[in-house]
């Protein structure tokens, strides 16, 4: 069975170790669970929102592992956005967005830069160094045409939707990653065997030392 290597980035600022991990219903969300567990062992304080849980036994075990690591699971996402709050009162948000539409009503997402409403708009409400967004991409072996950002087209990207600060492409960047405008783009694909890399002409960059992520 597949064991995703989902080590989080070493570059996230440590001033404020609280992290919100929003997990979707499929594999992307499961990778989020693994990441949350590792963040916890790196002394971050993750909290998970996982509204639609997969029945897959592997993913259910990931959930148990997180629970037993004392990682809280939110029962709902707060609806209030507070742009007037000082940056230090907002948590760092690390989001793991499913590759398709949101699993819950858009109005519930307003804490994370959404405006309430059906359209997903990037409102830029949370400013300052306290907010960082990180996205996991879906590895090509599973759903090759999917891209992370809800509202983004897999190939064309999207002008609406979330604007993450950091993107972590798994295996290899997807077409839509060209539209990524945030601060840092990492690729995490060191586990790919050489013949797979060659077959799909992935041409990955050199990974430094024993690191499993490389900044692009």
């Amino acid at each position, binding site marked *: 069975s597949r064991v995703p*290597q989902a080590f*989080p980035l070493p570059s996230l600022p440590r001033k404020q170790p609280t992290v919100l991990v929003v997990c979707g219903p499929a594999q992307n969300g499961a990778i989020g669970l693994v990441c949350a567990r590792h963040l916890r062992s790196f002394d971050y304080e993750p909290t998970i929102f996982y509204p639609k849980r997969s029945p897959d036994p592997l993913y259910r075990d990931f959930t148990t*592992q997180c629970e037993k*690591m004392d990682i809280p699971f939110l029962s709902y996402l707060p609806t209030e956005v507070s742009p007037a709050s000082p940056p230090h009162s907002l948590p760092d948000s690390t989001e793991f967005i499913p590759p398709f539409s949101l699993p819950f009503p858009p109005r519930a997402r307003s804490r994370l830069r959404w405006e309430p409403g059906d359209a997903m708009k990037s409102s830029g409400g949370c400013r300052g160094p306290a907010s960082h967004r990180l996205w996991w991409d879906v590895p090509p072996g599973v759903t090759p045409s999917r891209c992370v950002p809800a509202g983004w087209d897999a190939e064309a990207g999207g002008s609406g939707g979330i604007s993450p600060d950091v993107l972590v492409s798994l295996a290899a960047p997807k077409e839509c990653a060209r539209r990524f405008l945030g601060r840092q783009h990492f690729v995490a694909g060191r586990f790919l*065997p050489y013949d797979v890399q060659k077959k799909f002409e992935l041409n990955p960059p050199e990974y430094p030392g024993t690191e499993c992520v490389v900044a692009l």
Partner: protein
Amino acid sequence: QEEAQAIDQELFTEYKFSVDQLMELAGLSCATAIAKAYPPSSFTTSQPAVLVVCGPGNNGGDGLVCARHLKMFGYLPTVYYPKRPSKPLFEGLTTQCEKMDIPFLPEFPTEAAFIDELYGLVVDAIFGFSFKGAVREPFGSILSTLERVTVPIASIDIPSGWDVEKGKADGLQPDMLISLTAPKKAATHFAGRYHFLGGRFVPPALQEKYALNLPAYPGTDCVLQLT
């Protein structure tokens, strides 16, 4: 030894970790520790060739994972895996190595001198913390050959053939020990240059329950150098 087994059991039954997950993290730790202590540039052989000797159980599985990551880190591992459990986990790990063009030797080098000539490092992934009793062939002869090897040996979790608590004064003397999860009692008898801790997956609650008193890992590293 019992405590180590109890921790393992709890990780699987209470925490619902799969053997695959923990083995992958353990093997990655081993490869990472090796890369820190013996970078490819430090090898006296013309290529950074490594011989990975895998035993019949989970320690062997850790070795297979380690070999695969060593390949990705730029080493040239070769595996010797004489007794393979017919379980999907081990069959899968073997296939993963084969598909990474990691050769599997059909027989073990007969002389320690051959190993010294061909390889700059040997990874001992033969027996782990569950080892008890007499050493069965072919591992008896393998261990006697390894005891005469002069290139460094890195042992995974327990130097093979050692008593898990008391060690073995006339047994294998590895240059490196990678203790997984927590050092075992036998580690007090370890006299090599490098002792690393690996297997950064023990939940805080479990660390407390067993009073492991593990030192802090640096940053996001999956290994910690103890000596």
